[in-house]
């Protein structure tokens, strides 16, 4: 039997692929890389593209699309940490600016400052209400 290596493709929102392979081809940032078993440890970013996986029991290669991410290679394991969102420095920056401006808007609209004591009192009240409800339930049953 041919030598195999383990391939895991995971994204933050779901596990995409996990299985054995004879070799994998991955669209790395500096060009496509083909990984065979016992590859030296490698850490690199990958571009959007398709990952080709040759499973030992199948004649055809599996094609899996990834939108970018990070590739980690260990001698027997290939891990692809796929991004779920399209990333880019400018894009991330734009998202950050948007989140910030929203927060600033909220800050501008806020009413007079409240002190810790009042907030604590409010929370204590909510907690007391919950406790009371729980007690009531216990009495009834």
């Amino acid at each position, binding site marked *: 039997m041919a030598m195999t290596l383990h391939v895991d493709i995971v994204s*933050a929102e779901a596990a995409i692929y996990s299985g054995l392979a004879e070799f994998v081809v991955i669209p790395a940032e500096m060009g496509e890389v083909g990984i065979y078993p016992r590859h030296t440890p490698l850490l690199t970013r990958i571009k959007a593209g398709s990952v080709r996986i040759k499973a030992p029991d199948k004649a055809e290669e599996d094609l899996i699309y990834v939108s970018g991410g990070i590739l980690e290679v260990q001698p027997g394991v290939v891990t692809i*940490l796929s*991004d*779920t969102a399209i990333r880019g420095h400018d894009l991330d920056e734009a998202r950050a600016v948007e989140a910030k401006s929203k927060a600033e808007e909220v800050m501008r609209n*806020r009413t007079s400052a409240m002190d810790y004591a009042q*907030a604590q009192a409010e*929370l204590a009240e909510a907690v007391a209400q919950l406790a009371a409800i729980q007690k009531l339930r216990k009495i009834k049953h």
Partner: protein
Amino acid sequence: MAAGKEIRSKIKSVENTRKITRAMEMVAAAKMRKAQDRMRHARPYAEKIGRVAAHFSQAHPEYRHPFVVSRETIKRVGVILVTTDKGLCGGLNTNALRLSLGKLKDWDERKIEVDVCAIGNKGLGFMQRLGVNIASQVTGLGDTPHMERLIGPVQVMLDAYKEGRIDALYLVYSRFISTMKQEPAFKQLLPLSSEDATEKAEHHWDYIYEPEARSVVDSLMVRYVEALIYQAVAENLASEQSARMVAMKAASDNAKSVIDELKLVYNKTRQAAITQEISEIVAGAAAV
């Protein structure tokens, strides 16, 4: 029978309330299962990226990423507060907010300033009223939180950390323990605590980095922190749905017992009215 009519309409209104709470309970139960699945799906990514980060911190000692270096003096900290968007989920948000309030007070006494990144409406509203500086926010993540929505607000905090505006970053969320039990959790994100990202075993190898160590590690670290936050958001969502289901079940049960009591009172007054009528007739007949 004026009292009877009043009680009847009251019973009706409680029944309507119960219908709503029952429906909400069932919706929450269905959503809870999905939310728990999502939480489980997010786990492998966080585990894998954690392992890579651990390998890396062993393998490449000469370059230390700013995220792993702890600072001596802490003047300002950042808090990422994950709460729900909607209420009616028992004490879930209250507990998380109480935990963060305690921390805020503690920092206030030590003259440490705080920046908040609010994920979720409830925490945002609370912090707003509290008068804490809100650096970034995102609300309305819905039932399927997407990484895409989180990147922006998280980036604001990471940039602040890189530029030295904040010296530590913390995360507050509701940890999912079981359907019946959720706990508020307080976790240090940055600097990455060494227990999280180191293994005992000594490595004597290093990765090949392409294009170069620094940029690869930078993007890895950012993703690692984001994965931790996404995990917290997914867990918070599962907690929310579970807490809501339990709260709505309690509300439905309460409504049921209220209805039972009201029915008892209603029947009693009805019987009393009938008895009175009969005794009046009998008395009238006796007089004739």
